[in-house]
Structures are given as C-alpha cells and as structure tokens.
C-alpha cells in the first residue's frame, strides 16, 4: 500500500494534487462531475479587493501544447468571496482550501489577506505576485526581490495562516526572488505562474487576444516550471508547490523529485475536466511502477 499524503506547513493533504487558481473556479463546475473531496486541496480563483470583470474578450488563444489566457483576475471581490463563495464552496469541499489573493498595492494585499486569514475554511493563503494580465499590480510585485519581500513581510504581519508567495517565471533570476520571500517570512513558495506569450491571427494580422499578450500555460511549459522548482529548491528551505504544465501522475512525481512538496494542476483541468481525478487515481500505479512507497520521501529526490 503506497502512501500519497504530504504535509505543507503543518497541513496534511491526502495527496499532493491541487487544482491551480483560475482553472477551477470555486470548484462548483467540477463538483458536478466528481467528488472533489478526493483532491489534496484546491486553490480558488484569484481574489482582489474590488470586483473585477477582467480584460476584454477574446481572452483565449490556442498554442501548441497549451493556451494563452488574458482573463485579468475576473472575480467578485473579497467581500463577496467571503460572504457568498466560501459558504457555497463549503457545501462541496470539506477540506481546507487555498485562498489565492491578488492586489494592486501592498495595502490591498494586506487588506485582502487579513480578511481571508479569519476564514476557518482557508488552510493556506497563496499570494499572487505574478499575474501577467493586469497593469500596475500583480506581476509588478513579483519581478523584483525587494518588492516581493515587501509584500511578503506586510502580509505575514497580518496573517496567522501559512502564506505562500506565487512567483512569476517572467524574471531573470527566480531564485533571488524566492530567497527574498523566504527571508521576509514566507511559509512557502508556489511556482510558476504563466509565461508571458502572444499569438497573432494570420487572417486579421492582429493579436488574437484583445489584451494583445497573455499568460501561456499547458503541458508545453512543464520543463520550464520543473527547472525553476529545481533551482528554487536548492536555494530555499521552505516548501514549494510546483505548478506548470502538470497533466499526469508521472508529471506529479517528476515535479516532486525536482523539489515540490505539493503539485498544482492548471490548464489540464480546462481541456480534461477529470484531469485531477485521473491523476489521483493513477498515482498509486505510477508510484509502484517507479518503486516509490511514500510520496513525501521523494521530495527533492533528484538533488541527491
């Protein structure tokens, strides 16, 4: 009998599989398809202080091995999330959730995190300093070590729950940013968010998405994400949630060998709504195939 459970900052998950923010909504659509309580946890849609419609459409462009999105943090705002979505989520998901929090200023991050920190359903706060689809916010905080540290320090000062900082891959040196977050008190690191990309329609000769550029995700980015998880694991002691192009149980194991304690599944959910269920069901088989008794034993195994 293989053991799939892992522990993230004191929170024990039945398995390391976590749908990534923005690809799973608040879980309702998937709860109609399967019992989402099989998940380790899930990271709900990125939340800002004010309600946001997001960017103009089209917001989606197809790529080889993935897609570009420029949704732009569409969400009903932190107050509605707490008043309406969390109670509704509690009906279909009974484990601690990961609250993905965004902001346009340090003050907004602090405000949102302080509010969400009081919610018993929330197990981990994932602070998104890496959204590529909003201007003057999001990724701007995650591309500079000092800024990332400032957000981390400010948020940590108001949160009792573990705080993970979700990093952008659109930087020269992700290791320095991860280290800055760790030094500022982050409990963990989530990486990576989407890679900035674009497509141009050959018929109209214009960018496909209305916002011109967007975030590229999908199986094509897996090697990039894996490399960054590997590099950051060598530099920090805090746990890592590995994200980027994961679409199979084998990918989960590979990401954990690189250094991830848990693994988020993003774009795969959009094209294969049962992706996480299939990965979780396939994990024991994959573990047996590769001679793994306990997943928590293999974290960072590739570094030895």
């Amino acid at each position, binding site marked *: 009998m293989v053991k799939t459970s892992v522990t993230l900052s004191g929170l024990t998950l039945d398995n390391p599989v976590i749908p990534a923010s*923005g*690809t*799973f*909504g608040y879980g*309702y*659509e*998937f709860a*109609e*398809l399967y019992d989402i309580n099989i998940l380790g946890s899930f990271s709900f*849609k990125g939340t800002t202080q004010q309600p946001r*419609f*997001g960017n103009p*459409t*089209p*917001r*989606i*462009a*197809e*790529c*080889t*091995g*993935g*897609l570009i*999105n420029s*949704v732009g943090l*569409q969400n009903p705002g932190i107050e509605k999330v707490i008043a309406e979505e969390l109670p509704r989520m509690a009906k279909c998901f009974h484990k601690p959730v990961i609250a993905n929090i965004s902001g346009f200023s340090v003050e907004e991050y602090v405000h949102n995190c302080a509010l969400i920190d009081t919610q018993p359903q929330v197990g981990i706060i994932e602070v998104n300093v890496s959204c590529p689809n909003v201007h003057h916010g999001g990724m701007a905080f995650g591309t500079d070590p000092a800024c990332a540290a400032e957000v981390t320090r400010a948020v940590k000062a108001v949160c009792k729950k573990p705080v993970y900082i979700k990093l952008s891959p659109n930087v020269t040196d992700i290791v320095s940013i991860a280290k800055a977050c760790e030094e500022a008190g982050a409990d963990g690191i989530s990486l990576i968010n989407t890679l900035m990309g674009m497509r141009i329609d050959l018929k109209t000769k214009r960018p*496909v998405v209305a916002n011109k550029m967007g975030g590229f995700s*999908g*199986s094509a980015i897996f090697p990039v994400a894996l490399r960054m998880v590997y590099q950051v694991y060598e530099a920090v002691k805090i746990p890592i949630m590995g994200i980027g192009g994961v679409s199979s149980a084998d990918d989960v194991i590979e990401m954990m060998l690189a250094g991830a304690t848990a693994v988020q599944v993003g*774009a795969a*959910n*959009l*094209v*294969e*709504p*049962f992706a996480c269920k299939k990965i979780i069901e396939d994990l024991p088989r994959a573990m047996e195939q590769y001679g793994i008794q306990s997943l928590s034993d293999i974290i960072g195994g590739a570094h030895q």
Partner: protein
Amino acid sequence: MVKQSLFTILSHTRLTDSMYRLVLSGDTSAITAPGQFVNIKLDGFFLRRPISVCDYDETTLTLLYKTVGKGTRFLSTLKEGEVLDILTGLGNGYDTAKSGDRPLLCGGGAGVPPMYHLAKVLLAEGKKPQVLLGFNTKDEIFYKEEFRALGTDVYLATADGSYGTKGFVTDLISLTGDYTYAFACGPIPMLKAISDAIHCSGQFSFEERMGCGFGACMGCSCQTKYGNKRICKDGPVLQKEEIIW
C-alpha cells in the same frame, strides 16, 4: 450536467465549400435543450473545439460545423468509424416555454445549425415556427430542404441576392406573418439587427473564444444587464432584455 464520453463517427459529409455534417453515435443523455453545444477533443490540439448541436436523439448526435481554422480543418479529415472524446450537455440552450405560438427562428451562416433541433422541439410542442435563414451567397446555403421537410415555413436570404431575398435575415421578417417571439443565432451584427427589428422578446445565442467550455476559466465572460455571464455556462443563449449591445 456535463458529460464526457466517446462518440463514433457514423457519417461525415461535406455540405458546402466550408460546412460539414458530422453524425456520431454515442451517449447523448446530457443534452437537455436545443442550442446547447459540445466540446470536441482533437488529436494534436490543446483546446477542445466547441460546436453547436444541430440535432440529436437517444443514440445519435448531428453536428454541422464550418471549417474556420486548423482545428476544424483537421476535424474535417476524420473518417467514418473514428472515435472522438466529446463533452456534451454544455451551455444553457434555448428555453421554448416563452415562445408563444409563432416564434421566428433566425439563423445566419454558421448560426443556422442549432435552429434545426429547435424547430423540431417547437413543432413537437404544437407551435408553428417560422424559419428565416441568411447566407452570403447561394453556394453557401445548406439544410434548406431539411428545414422544409420538417413542415415549417422557411424563408431564405442571400447577401448577394443569388438566391431568395437579397439582403439579410432581418429583411425576411416583413415577409412572415404575425410572430410571437424570436430565437436567433449568427454573427453579432445580425443578432443586434434582429433585436432592433422585432417587436417582441427573444433569445440570442452568442459565440466567444472559449477555454474550457464548462464555466471554469472565465475565458468567455461578457457583461449583461443582469451581471457578468460566462458564454459557455450561463449562455450561449441570452435573453433580449439582458443583452448590452
């Protein structure tokens, strides 16, 4: 309720230069209303391809689709007996309860297919749908005889005047008798023109580039008078009264 299942191609026919009819056998139990769509996985393409349902019964699904890009061109090469992974039961579809006795069914180009099953449902409810179809040119007309075979009144317009009334679907409204409601699917300028032309309420089906097709990604959101909606999950059919043109 969304369902993922495998469908086998029973027949695949070219109707015009760019329109194809795909008849599939499989489990259609998740399809609950005319105007819903399915999302098809294609080998070598990351995103599924959303296609409106033209017709279905317990065991077969008929899709008419236009080749617009690499994905649909690849789809057009598939042969009888090949198997497709399809999500069914997507979208809200048309609600026929409000249609009155004589609804207009307005389809433009690639927006024509969902009108077919809608016409069948309305006829089965004892109503008298009047079908108005618009195409660019005579060569692009499809399903004219199929609609007529249902026993409905069918009016045709072509933009270049090569068949039927010269002009658009809206130019056909004056040719019909009294009408009680309008159902429409087609390009947005056509939908808006119909909305402006009719003296009654209606339901309009919209298209948008989608990520997932089942409400998870917020890729296809739009703003309405009743708040933000996802074209794939809360639509594709919107009520005339809520649409912000």
